[in-house]
């Protein structure tokens, strides 16, 4: 993975000192609240319902074992012994003390980590495919491009006070595991007929209170222009994006209001006039340098037959076989698999463990397991899970046993209980409704694993307010918490997707009361299990079924 140069290290160290001084001046009354607010946000620090929240950056989701150990140590010493992984693959601390935040940042800087630009109206953490580099059908590993974008956007002097936040995602496969079409900019690595590498550039996607799918403004941007083109997009947005209303300030509103064609014209004009082929142009040598930080690991030459025979023996253990089938993914190198650790433990000792939460003990143990089984690296996913990308097939059984002890081997990846859930009203100052109680209700209601397997792949996303941090618009099932005269109600939508065929879900109808959420889901799922087509032993997936039958049969089943 990328290792800091002297320049990177100097930059984060300087940033820690700068923020320490800003916090000191704020606490001394020298820095006004309205100026400290955007500055602390750009250092990842929110003020939440009960306490500050610090969001630590995990660039494109990649963490080394020594960094995991530091994170474990920080949660122990400065927080309550746990952290929370987000859909942008960052790690949130929910209980730090404001005056200790500069010290936490200094600790992070000692392991090449920081909280820079994880919040605020600036360019945020760039995200990517959690299986980057291990996909057989990948055009190219997107991470070198993510790292170039990270370096370009970090402390970019011109784009630190944008109209609103700005999120970029990059993928290198036709499958989309990073929700790129609902990003401010989505980049798809492509190869053209001449074998040149470039990007499809998608702009103006986003969720929140105005969900919009991004528009392609450039079908093939040769890769050497990556930064000059991003520069042009950002400048057009910075100068033209609305600043009078924060709910209309995202780039999606600008693109929508002027039309993608007009927006593209402005970008192309800015680019052609000023920066195309200028000093922001990247060279082949630059790309080779960037790629050199993401080399292929020293994979063993594995005897496939022996490896498979050993695996087959273990697959006779049904619990292991379930986990293998749901929680591991193919690897381009024979004899290796990717392993997904579920951070959706569900009910542990009868109590719901919030999606994405992880304890200091788990962090420490995962660091050891990463060293032992996966070249010392771990990755975060958009679904708030973690991945060991490079595990030998013959190590899977031993790893599974270790993960089982840690409550990290729940075999529910891709199923109904692999929910994306925001912290909701329990922790977040923006939320209108609680989410963790609903997730707990769903866990209790749907506790039969065989039933969940029978339902197959279903993405359930639940947000506690219309800001849509849990991407409810693009879940197969979306749940949105709303406030009605102080009571929490829940609006359900169906048919969304953040994959290659990104779609916004359709609202089922009027919202349902707290205690009715799981029973309503059951009615919805019964429509599916009763009416789905089955070919051989392969039932029509839930997503396809909803597209085929539409919302009507679900409405009838729920509202009569």
């Amino acid at each position, binding site marked *: 993975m*990328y290792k*800091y*140069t002297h*320049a*990177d290290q*100097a*930059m984060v160290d*300087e*940033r820690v000192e*700068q923020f320490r*001084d*800003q916090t000191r001046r704020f606490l001394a009354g*020298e*820095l006004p609240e*309205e*100026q400290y607010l*955007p*500055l602390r946000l750009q250092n990842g620090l929110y003020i939440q319902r009960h306490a500050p929240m610090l969001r630590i950056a995990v660039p494109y989701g990649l963490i080394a074992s020594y960094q995991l150990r530091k994170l474990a140590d920080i949660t122990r010493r400065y927080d309550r012994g746990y952290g929370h992984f987000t859909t942008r693959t960052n790690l949130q601390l929910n209980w730090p003390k404001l005056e200790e935040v500069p010290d936490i940042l200094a600790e992070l800087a000692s392991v090449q980590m920081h909280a820079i630009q994880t919040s605020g*109206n600036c360019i945020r953490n760039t995200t990517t495919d959690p299986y980057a580099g291990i996909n057989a059908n990948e055009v190219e590993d997107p991470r070198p491009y993510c*790292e*170039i974008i990270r*370096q*370009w956007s*970090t*402390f*970019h*002097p*011109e*784009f*630190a*006070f*944008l*109209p609103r936040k700005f999120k970029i995602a990059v993928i290198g496969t036709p499958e989309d595991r990073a929700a790129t079409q609902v990003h401010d900019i989505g980049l798809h690595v492509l190869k053209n007929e001449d074998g040149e590498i470039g990007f499809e550039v998608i702009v103006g996607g986003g969720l929140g209170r105005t969900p919009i799918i991004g528009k392609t403004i450039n079908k093939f941007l040769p890769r050497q222009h990556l*930064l000059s083109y991003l*520069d042009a997009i950002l*400048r057009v947005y*910075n*100068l033209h994006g609305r*600043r009078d209303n924060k709910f209309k300030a995202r780039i999606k509103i600008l693109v929508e209001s002027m039309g993608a064609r007009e927006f593209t014209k402005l970008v192309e004009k800015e680019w052609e006039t*000023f*920066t195309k082929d*200028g*000093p*922001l*142009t*990247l060279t082949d040598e*630059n790309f080779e*340098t*960037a790629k050199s*930080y993401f080399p292929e690991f020293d994979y063993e030459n594995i005897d496939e037959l022996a490896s498979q025979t050993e695996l087959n023996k273990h697959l006779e253990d049904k619990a292991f076989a379930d986990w293998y089938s749901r929680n591991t993914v193919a690897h381009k190198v024979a004899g290796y698999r990717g392993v997904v650790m579920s951070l959706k433990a569900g009910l542990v000792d009868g109590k719901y463990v919030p999606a994405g939460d992880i304890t200091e003990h788990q962090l420490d143990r995962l660091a050891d397991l990463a060293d032992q089984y996966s070249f010392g690296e771990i990755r975060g996913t958009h679904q708030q899970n973690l991945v060991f990308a490079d595990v030998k097939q013959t190590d899977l059984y031993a790893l599974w046993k270790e993960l089982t002890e840690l409550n990290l081997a729940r075999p529910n990846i891709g199923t109904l209980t692999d929910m994306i859930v925001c912290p909701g009203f329990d922790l977040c100052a923006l939320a209108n409704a609680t989410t963790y109680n609903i997730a707990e209700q769903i866990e209790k209601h749907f506790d039969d694993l065989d039933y969940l397997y029978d339902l197959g792949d279903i993405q359930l996303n639940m947000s506690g307010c219309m800001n849509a941090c849990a991407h409810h618009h693009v879940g197969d099932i979306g749940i949105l918490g709303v406030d009605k005269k102080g009571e929490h109600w829940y609006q359900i939508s169906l048919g969304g997707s953040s994959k290659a065929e990104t779609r916004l879900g359709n609202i089922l109808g009027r919202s349902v009361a707290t205690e009715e959420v799981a029973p309503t889901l059951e009615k919805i799922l019964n429509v599916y299990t009763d009416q789905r087509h089955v070919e051989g032993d392969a039932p029509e997936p839930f997503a396809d079924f909803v597209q085929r039958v539409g919302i009507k049969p679900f409405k009838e089943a729920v509202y009569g």
Partner: protein
Amino acid sequence: MGNYHILNEEATSITAEDSWYAIETAELPEPVSIKSLQLSELLHKEERLDVILPLTGVIAPTGLLNELLDIITARASRMGLWADTSVSTEQLDQLLQACKDAERPLLHNLDLIVLYQPSFVDGRSFSQARHLRQQGFEGEIRISGDFGRDQIAYLKRAGVNSFVIPDEKLTDDIVSAFHALPSSYDGSVASQLPMFR
């Protein structure tokens, strides 16, 4: 007007040497310059002065300004312009084109553009400064208004080279703000990214 200071890129005060007078119009925000002057005063001055006019007034002069522009420029020794963040890049381009066309010789030697930032979070001034530099403007770009000391280093990198700072904000340690994040870059050169340095 309150008490203001002007600092250059090195955080050195250039207040004493500053010779600019902003011409008072209804739209003139405080502070664009440390000194201002009514039109009538300008007309009664014996000596020629360095004057700052509203940018929008110069590229599309209307009313009194239109009639007086020639007189003003005839009585000025140097000309500067001010604009707030609502001015568009098209207007900036029109201005620079007008400078090239040089119907008025003073415009040809435009020495100063003051960008007025009305609120701390209004980041358009950063792109306006960058745009002017991209267009080849080599004069002084001065920032005034409600920018904060924590933005100074970024503003410098975006192309700003002087700063109007109110008395109460001119603390002894302000020089550190001019040199914040010394290892980071100006955003315009790929070879300056850490991995390519």
